[in-house]
């Protein structure tokens, strides 16, 4: 019965109901199915919401991003890249992927991110590089390039951070295994994140290289 909440989440997201309402409905149904009274559910939800406030403090960077954008940050980034020979969106994003993985691997996960680096810098640079490569972009292609920038940031973060010893997921694994009487040092765990990190770089890098090829084909088709 408690799985009803999961069904609501899946159905709600598939049917594109308002996500905030779906989450609340799922919490209420799950709680009721587990025998909690409505007030206890609301209390538990409120407590968890207050404890998770740190998730939302990242938005304090927006005033700085907004100030710089109003003074031409994106235009300046475009100007620089347009002057650089051989700068392609694929090569640039592979470079960003490596930097993001390396920073995450030494524990610097919050240094970059969607509000901090992707919106002000990575997405506009990728956009102008792709524009030059393809000889102009239509609306859908522009959207796709921005999405590539965001996706690359995620891949770099996820498959870099576990190499760091003191990241939450490594500590969670250590803690759980200790409950079963298996004692491991964080280093013994984090080295095994390296093979996957390399595979992620190869797979995502290959897809970015193919993106460059595709943009070149678009240009050739438009020139004809």
């Amino acid at each position, binding site marked *: 019965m408690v799985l009803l909440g999961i069904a609501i989440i*899946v159905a709600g997201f598939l049917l594109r109901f308002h996500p905030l309402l779906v989450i609340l409905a799922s919490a209420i149904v799950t709680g009721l199915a587990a025998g909690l009274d409505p*007030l206890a559910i609301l209390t538990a939800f409120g407590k968890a*919401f207050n404890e998770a406030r740190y998730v*939302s*403090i990242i938005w*304090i960077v927006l005033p700085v991003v907004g100030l*710089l954008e*109003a003074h031409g940050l994106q235009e300046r980034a475009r100007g620089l890249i347009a002057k650089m020979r051989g700068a392609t969106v694929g090569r640039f994003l592979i470079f960003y992927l490596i930097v993001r993985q390396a920073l995450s691997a030494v524990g610097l996960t919050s240094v970059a991110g969607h509000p901090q680096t992707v919106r002000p810098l990575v997405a506009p640079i990728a956009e102008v590089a792709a524009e030059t490569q393809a000889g102009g972009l239509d609306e859908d292609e522009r959207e796709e390039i921005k999405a590539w*920038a965001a996706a690359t940031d995620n891949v770099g973060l996820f*498959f870099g951070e576990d190499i760091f010893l003191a990241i939450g997921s490594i500590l969670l694994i250590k803690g759980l295994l200790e409950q079963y009487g298996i004692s491991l040092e964080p280093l013994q765990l984090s080295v095994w994140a390296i093979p996957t990190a390399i595979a992620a770089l190869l797979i995502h890098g290959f897809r970015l290289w193919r993106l460059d090829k595709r943009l070149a084909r678009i240009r050739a088709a438009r020139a004809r």
Partner: protein
Amino acid sequence: MITLHWVYALAGAVFAAFALLGVADRGNPRRWTTAAFWALLATSMWAGDALGDLGNGVLVLGLVALGALGLGRGNGVVPADVRQARADRFGNRLFAIALIIPVTALAGTFLFKAAPGWFDAKQATLIALALGVLIAMTVGCLWLRASALVPLQQGRRLMDCVGWAAILPQMLASLGAVFALAGVGDVVGGIVQQAIPQGSLIGAVIAYGLGMALFTMVMGNAFAAFPVMTAAIGIPLLIRTYHGDPAIVCAIGMLAGFCGTLLTPMAANFNLVPAALLELKDKHGVIKRQVGTAVPLLIVNIALIYWLAFP
């Protein structure tokens, strides 16, 4: 000592400024609901600990109601020709200011740990990030000769682009807590245990890797899926029955879960929030670009567990 609560106070002030500027934004057809939404979030940042658990629950109801009514966007876009002229005038200064935040976060992470009496070392990066924002805002206003209202007004504009999606990650984290309270994980673990084929090592490895990815997609978070799947399959089968190396099974199993994170709208802060922040028309545009990396990488992870953990 400077702790996370100082950062909450700063965040509260920023959200309160968004609310006040939002009320004055006559270009926004829904300026009252929009402003009320950010005002409630400011209240949460400032007074969350004083409200009590039930009070916070009621605050959440208010946020959800306002979000469901619908928030709007208003004025404030600087025309492209003005931006271009300013870009030509200010040049690389703009990059220098943009780099203040990451550089301060980087330096603070190390320096604050060296001064544990002054800063809460466990939260060093978040405190340093907030400090970086303050420095960048001050330097930016002075260097670009902008009034202090400009960053707040432009920040308000970007915040309105994100809208109610801004609290999705926090809401999903709270839902996870309710799931844990209701024992959802134990039930899922029981079902998984019944579903896997008996006596097949490769079958058990696939069930573990795939189970991590799928349950992560449902929960939006590999941290929630990991204890469930590891207790149901990882420990009893892969480690105890087939004598797999626990470090390899668990470390790569977690990463199989991360592949699931790339595929789900439930991981809102990674997948939906950037789509809103980059003003994409397709909310799932970021996920679509990630499928081609996540699926092959999940197969690689399952293969790695099979090859490396069972010599």
